[in-house]
C-alpha cells in the first residue's frame, strides 16, 4: 500500500513538468548561444536583454564554438552574436548549407597573427617584423625545439597551418600547436610573469589587449598572388610566404525558425552591429574591472541607449 502511494505520487510528479512547460511555452523562448570568451558572453547578454525589453522570452545555452552552427541549423538554438572568420569559417559555411541563416556582418574587423609581448623588443629589437624576429629565433627556443625558436600556435583544428608558413619563409621556428585557446593564455601568462621571450598566436578583438601589452608581428601582406605565384614574396621558390589578412569578418548567425516564429526579433537582430572599440570595451569591463558578464551587459545597454534603441525600432 505504501509503495503504491509512492508510485502514485511519483507519477503525479512526472506529469507536472509537462503541464508547467505548456504554461511557459505560450511565449516560446529564443535560445541565444553562449561561448566561453568574454566579449561573446557580454554581447550575447546585451542582445538577450534587448530582446527581453521588446517582450520576448530569452534563454541562454552554452555551446562549443563549432557545434553551435549545426545546432542552429537544426533549430536547437536560435542566435549567435559572434561568428569569427578566422576560427569558425568552415563550420559556419557548412551549417549555412544545411539551413542556418547568415544574420549579417558586424562593422568590427578581426585580425589573427603572430603576436609578441612588448618586453620582447628589449632583447630582440627587430621582433616587430618577421625578419627581425627570425634573427633572434634562438631566444625563443625550448628543450623540444632547440636550436629553433618555438612559435606557440593555435589549436590544430582552427584551420591554419603555420608550419607551412614557417617553411615558405624559411624561418628558424617550429610551430607547436596547443589544444585549446586557454593553453595559449596560460603559456602567455607564465612567460609574461617571468619576462621570458615568447611568440604566440593571438587575435583581435579579445581580452588579451586589455591585460597584456604587446603587438602583432608584421608579415608580408597577403594577396591571391602570394598563394598562387611562387615568384611572389620574399621566397621566390614557395607559395604561401605571406601573413594573414588584417581584416577578417565577424558575423551573426541565426536558426531558420527565427524569422518565422519571431519576425520582430529577426528584424532587430539583423540591425545589431558592434565595432572593435565596443567589443573591446565590453570585454574590458569583465576582464579588467571584474564585473560579471551579465552586469557588464546591463551597463553597456545603459551607456549605449541610443544604439540599442535604433535596433529596437
Amino acid at each position, binding site marked *: 500500500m505504501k509503495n503504491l502511494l509512492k508510485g502514485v505520487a511519483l507519477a503525479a510528479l*512526472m506529469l507536472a513538468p509537462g503541464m508547467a512547460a505548456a504554461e511557459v511555452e505560450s511565449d516560446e523562448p529564443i535560445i541565444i548561444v553562449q561561448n*566561453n570568451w568574454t566579449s561573446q558572453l557580454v554581447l550575447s547578454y546585451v542582445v538577450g536583454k534587448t530582446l527581453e525589453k521588446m517582450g520576448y522570452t530569452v534563454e*541562454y545555452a552554452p555551446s562549443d564554438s563549432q*557545434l553551435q552552427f549545426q545546432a542552429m541549423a537544426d533549430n536547437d538554438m536560435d542566435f549567435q552574436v559572434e561568428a569569427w572568420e578566422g576560427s569558425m569559417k568552415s563550420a559556419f559555411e557548412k551549417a549555412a548549407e544545411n539551413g542556418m541563416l547568415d544574420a549579417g556582418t558586424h562593422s568590427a574587423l578581426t585580425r589573427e597573427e603572430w603576436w609578441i609581448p612588448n618586453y620582447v623588443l628589449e632583447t630582440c629589437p627587430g621582433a616587430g617584423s618577421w625578419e627581425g624576429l627570425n634573427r633572434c629565433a634562438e631566444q625563443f627556443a625550448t*628543450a623540444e625545439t632547440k636550436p629553433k625558436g618555438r612559435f606557440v600556435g593555435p589549436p590544430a583544428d582552427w584551420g591554419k597551418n603555420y608550419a607551412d608558413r614557417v617553411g615558405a619563409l624559411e624561418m628558424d621556428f617550429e610551430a607547436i600547436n596547443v589544444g585549446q585557446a586557454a593553453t595559449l593564455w596560460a603559456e602567455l601568462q*607564465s612567460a609574461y610573469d617571468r619576462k621570458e621571450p615568447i611568440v604566440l598566436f593571438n587575435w583581435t578583438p579579445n581580452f588579451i589587449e586589455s591585460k597584456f601589452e604587446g603587438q602583432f608581428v608584421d608579415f608580408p601582406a597577403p594577396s591571391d598572388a602570394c598563394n598562387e605565384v611562387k615568384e611572389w614574396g620574399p621566397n621566390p621558390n614557395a607559395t604561401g610566404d605571406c601573413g594573414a589578412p588584417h581584416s577578417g569578418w565577424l558575423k551573426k548567425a541565426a536558426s531558420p525558425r527565427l524569422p518565422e516564429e519571431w519576425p520582430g526579433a529577426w528584424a532587430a537582430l539583423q540591425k545589431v552591429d558592434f565595432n572593435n572599440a565596443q567589443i573591446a570595451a565590453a570585454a574590458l569591463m569583465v576582464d579588467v574591472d571584474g564585473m560579471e558578464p551579465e552586469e557588464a551587459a546591463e551597463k553597456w545597454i545603459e551607456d549605449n541607449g541610443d544604439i540599442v534603441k535604433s535596433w529596437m525600432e
Partner: protein
Amino acid sequence: MTEATAPTATETNRGFSLAAIPLWAQFAAIIIFGVLLSLVWDGATRWPEAWTVPMAAWITEFIEWLKSEATIFGVEFKEITRGIGAALKAPVKWAEYLLYRGFKGIGLGPLPWVAVAAGVTIFAHWVGGRRLALLCVLTMIYLATFNLWKDSMKTMTIVIVAVPMAALLGVVLGIWVTRSQTASRIISPMFDLMQATPHMAYLAPVAALFAFGPVTALIATVIFAMPPMARCTILGLQTVSSDVLEAGQMSGCTKRQLLWKVALPSSKRTLMLGLNQVVMQTLAMVVIASIAGATGLGHKLLYSLQQLRLGVAIEQGIAISLIAIVLDRLTQAYAYKETDHFAATKTWTQRHKHMLLFLGILVVSYIAAEYWRWVKIPPSKFVWGTGDAKTVLFDAKLLARHADQAIRDFNVVAFDYINPIRDWVTIWILLPVRDFFLWLPWPVFVGVIGLAAWRLGGLSVLLLCLALMFSFIVTGFWVETMKTTYLVLIAAALCVMIGVPLGIWAARSERVANIIMPICDTLQTFPSFIYLIPAIMLFRIGDFANIFAILPYATVPAIRYTYLGLKRIPPVTIEAAIANGATRMQRLFKVELPVALPEIMLGLNQTIMMALAMTAITALIGSTDLGQEVVRSISTQNFGRGILAGFFIAALGIIADRLIGSWAAERKRQLGVA
C-alpha cells in the same frame, strides 16, 4: 613482472610443442623477424596507404545519413531520436523548475535555498547523525557564500535525474548478466568498451543524434556512469557466500526472493561502492558535458579557466568536489543505516519528526521568501551595517584574485627549479621512449602482445587482442595509437609506483587512511580540467605536462583498490600467518599482498582506464595522439575519426585488461586463492 612470472605458470601446464622453446627465445624470434621485415618492407613500419580501410569516412557518412535521410517504418530516424530526447526532457525540465526556475505557470518560485539547505541537512542528520549534518551545513554555506548556489542547482538538475537512471539501469543489467550466459558474453565486453571510452567521445555523436542541450548531457552521463554500477552488481552477486544462499534456499525462498531478499541485500556493500562510483562519474561527466550544452558549474568552470581565473576555477572546482563528497557520504550513510526495530512502539510523529521538520521549514521559507530575497537566493555580498558604515564581511572575488596571484607568484619562483628537471626528463626519458614506440614496426608490437595474450589467456584472448590491434592498424591510426600507448604506459607506471605504497600505508594505519581517503575522493571528483592550467604554466606545452595532469586522477584507483584489497583479507588468514611466526614484512609480502592481488590488479586496470580517459582531457594542452582526435572531432564534426579514436583508446584499455586479468587469474590459481 608480468613476463617474469608467466612462463613458470604456463610452461608446465600446456602440452604444446612450442613450450619446449624457451619463452625468451620466442619473443626474441618475433622481435628479430619484425625488425628484419621492416628493413626490407616499408609496410611493416607504416601500414601501406593503399591498404588502409577508410573506416572513419564511412562512419561520418553513416551518421550524416542517419541524421538526414534514414527512416524506420516510414518514420524519420531523426524524429525517433528527437522523440526520445523530448521524453527525457520532461524529468530534466521538472528538476529545473524545482531547483532554480520556479513554476511560472502557477506562480510558485523554485525551492528557496534555505529550504534546500535545511532539507539536505535534516536528511543527513537522519541517515548519518551530527557529523554528516555538519558536513552538509558547511557545504551549503560554502556554496552560498562563494556565490555558486544557482550554478550548483543547475548542475544538480542533471545529477538528480541521471544518478537514479544510471543506477537502476546498472543494477538491472548487472542482474541480467549474472543470470544469462549470453548476456554476459555480449554485455561484459560492452561495459569494458564503454568505460574505457573517454567522456568526450560520447558527446559529439550524442549531440548529433539527440536534441542539443541538457538532454545530450543527460544521455552521455547515464551511459558513462552506468557501467560501474553494473560491474559492482555482478561482482556483488557473484561473491555472495554460498552459505548465505543455501540458508536462503533452505528457508524456502523462491528464485526471486533469493535475489531480492538474500543476494542483493548481502552484497549491499559492493552495490554501494557501485553507487558511489556512479555519483562520482556523473559529476565528472556533467562538468565535461558543459561543452555540449549543459549549464551549471561545469560551464562556469570552463569559462574561468579560459580566462585564466584560476582562483575562481578552484572555488568552482571545490564546489563540485564538495557536492560529490556530500552525495557520496549521504548515499553511504543511507546504505549503512540500521533498520529501526523499535519503530512500531513509537508514535507517528516520533517516527516522522525529520520529515515534519522539513515540511515546516519548507512552508515557512516559501512564505518568508516573499518578504526577504535572501531566503530565496543567497545574497551575492555579505555586508554588515548600512549606508557608509557598511563593511564587506566576505568577498569571494577578492579571495579568488589573491589565489590567482599566489599561483602566478609560485610559478615565477618555482619555474627556475622545475624547468631543468622538466627538460632533463623530456629529453632523456620521454622523447626516447616516444621515438621508440614510433619506430616500433607493427609486426613486433602485434607479435609480442599476441604471444603474451596467447600464453597468458589462451586462444580466445589472443584472437580478441589481434582483432583489436589490427583494427587500429588497418584504419590508419597506428601513429596516434602508439603515442597514446607511450603516454599511458609511463603515466600508469608512475601511478602504480605512487599509489600502491600509499594504499599499503593507509591499510596499515587508520590515521593515514583517514587522511588519504578523503584526498582520494577530492582528487577523483575535482574536475580534471583544473590540473591543466597549472601544468601548462609550470611545465609548458609538452608530454611532461600531459603526464603530470594525468597523475592526480589516475593514481586514485591504485591507492583505493590496494587499500580495499588489504582491508578485505579475512582476519583468520592474518592470524594464521602470525601464528606461523611471520614477521610484519613477511606477512605483507607473503600473505597480504598475494591475497589482495586480484583487488590490486583491478586497481591497476582502473588506473590504466583512467589514464586512457585522461588523454582526451590532456589533449586540451596540445598533443597529437588519439585523445586529440577525440577532442578535435567534436569541433570539426568529423564524427568518424572521433568515434574510432575513442574506440581505439578503449581497445588499448581492453588489451591491458585482458593481459592483466589473465595473468591475475593464473596467479590466483597458483596461490590457491581462486
